[in-house]
């Protein structure tokens, strides 16, 4: 696929159809890929890559890229296309300045995920059929690709692109991979147990803001927490609950707009499963207002911003973790 994409990018640059290419650039190791804007065939030749480690969602970069003048080619994976649509809906991306080329994805892993499986000293990674053959400082190791995937990819919602101008490779389908299984597990806990679970997870937060900054739904020009004049901007937590509260508030803020791309959990240095908070809201919205997938299209009104006579009454909403 990488070769096909490279040819496509060079062809569109040469014909003048696009001025820049948004993709992924190879790093020092096999897995440390960086999002990159390429402006020439030489730059593409030197670093363009597409492999099993291109997990970064590129859509948020298009907020800026689509405003720089000229046209940008963006290679988007299925889950990136949901974020793209959602940003179009929120008038954040200038659609006519982007040429979307959909690319297939079989799930993306990263160095951290491999290391969590006990792989040490990675020198190189080769793909052999359905396996990774990992060359390390301490010998070779073979791992099935499916065993190397993070949770967000194991519970992938869709291999189908919801928007594209051109498509490379075979189009996939929407999937039912049990993405609410872990939410169900959390719901089955009693309130005290669930409170303790989230306290434990969220209290590891170091407030680096990586989750917020990577999130395509967090696209405010200036976040209230970065605004000196807001009265809530603080670089230090006033008490031990503040960071917990930050994540809960952020989940509310993106509710109905979060497409469940899982970038928040991927980037968290403290491995907090933040995407589960968002998934709980997605599940609740589905239950209370009917199935809704943010980013599926660019025109429908989201349940939380649309009043209908059939809307759920507050009284049926569960309270304190218990049925009211």
């Amino acid at each position, binding site marked *: 696929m990488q070769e096909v994409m490279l040819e496509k990018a060079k062809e569109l640059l040469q014909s003048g159809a696009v001025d820049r290419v948004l993709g992924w650039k190879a790093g*020092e*190791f096999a897995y440390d890929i960086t999002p990159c804007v390429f402006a020439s065939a030489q730059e593409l030749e030197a670093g363009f890559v597409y492999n099993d480690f291109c997990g*970064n969602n590129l859509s948020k970069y298009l907020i800026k890229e689509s405003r720089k003048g000229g046209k940008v080619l963006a290679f988007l994976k299925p889950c990136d296309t949901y974020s793209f649509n959602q940003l179009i809906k929120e008038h954040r991306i200038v659609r006519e300045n982007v040429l979307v080329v959909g690319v297939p994805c079989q799930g993306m892993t990263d160095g951290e995920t491999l290391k969590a499986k006990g792989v*040490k000293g990675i*020198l190189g990674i080769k793909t052999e059929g359905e396996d990774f053959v990992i060359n390390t*400082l301490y010998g070779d190791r073979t791992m099935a690709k499916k065993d190397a995937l993070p949770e967000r990819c194991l519970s992938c919602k869709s291999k189908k692109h919801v928007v594209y101008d051109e498509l490379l490779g075979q189009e996939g389908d929407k999937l039912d991979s049990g993405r609410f299984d872990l939410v169900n597990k959390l719901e089955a806990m009693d309130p005290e147990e669930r409170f303790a679970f989230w306290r434990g997870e969220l209290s590891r937060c170091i407030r*680096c803001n990586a989750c917020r900054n*990577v999130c395509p739904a967090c696209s405010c020009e200036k976040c209230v927490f970065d605004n000196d004049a807001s009265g809530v901007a603080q*670089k*230090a937590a006033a008490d031990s609950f503040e960071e917990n509260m930050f994540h809960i508030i952020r989940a509310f803020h993106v509710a109905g707009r979060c497409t469940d791309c899982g970038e928040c959990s991927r980037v968290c240095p403290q491995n907090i499963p933040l995407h589960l908070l968002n998934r709980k809201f997605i599940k609740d919205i589905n239950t209370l207002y009917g199935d809704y997938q943010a980013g599926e299209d660019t025109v429908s009104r989201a349940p939380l911003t649309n009043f209908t006579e059939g809307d759920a009454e507050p009284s049926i909403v569960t309270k304190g973790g218990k049925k009211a």
Partner: protein
Amino acid sequence: MRKIAKEKLGALLAAVGRDKPLYIPALDASGQARFTRWHEGLEMARALNTVRSAKDFFFPQTENLVDFKVKGKQIEIIDPRSEQEDFVLFGVRACDARSFEILDKVFLADPVDTYYQSRREHGTVVTLACTQPEETCFCSAFGIDAAAPEGDAQVWMDEEYLYLSARTQKGDKFLESVRALAEDGGEDAVQRQQEETRRVMAKTPLAGLNLEGFDGEHLNPLFDSEKWAELSQACLGCGTCTFVCPTCQCYDIRDFDTGDGVRRFRCWDSCMYSDFTKMAHGNPRLTQVERFRQRFMHKLVYFPANNDGQYGCVGCGRCLSKCPISMNIVKVAKELSKEVR
């Protein structure tokens, strides 16, 4: 040199941890290592490094500096510090151990930061030699020997024994506290392990990282390089790199309104943040390119230029593992080094 049978590790930790706070690397709920207060039954993690560095113990993420209380026309000034007690950090790696030397140059230079100084004086650092470096390790680029970590006392561990050696008076005291468990010997085993670790270290992909030209003399060509825009292009502006970094030492001091006064606190700052070093007149670095440049110029150029050539990095590799977009000091150094040679 003294040695203690490995099955007595629990007894060793208990002997130290019973008397004073002892912190060891232990796995958290997410399976990553972090320094955790020892308690009976807490198992030491075998991980190479903790997610957060050991600097937290001397330079915490937040601390209260002074309280002001207003009563009528009186303002009471309160020092919120309680007496610092002795504590032991066990299992610090060579990279983190060297980071204290760098932090000392900042906080113990005149005027001495007494908050930091007090913690340094009361903390005993017991290091643990590395045996299985990762590909992200590059401490050797800064002259650090992963097989011979610094600190007050050093520990090497193999499948049978822990080998201990003191480097300072505090280290002597530490060894004294576990005297009953120890016997003499171990020099040969330690030497064998060191040779093996150094052999692996030399094979790591970043072992040959060359920092030639990163100094005050080459400041201007590096500062004006066009590469910064390219390197910082995908930067999210989050603070991950700076917060997991053992040598990042920038902080902010702010006031918290308590209703009847002010609590003045200090907290880690990050050059990646939009309000970094913002002053009354505004912000000296308006774009992410400038803030990004600041981080690497500080570590690779400004710090060595002011500190006898010592770089503000110890090659622990945390930023390599944790940056959401995999941009880091190694990529920056390699790219820029093409311009100064």
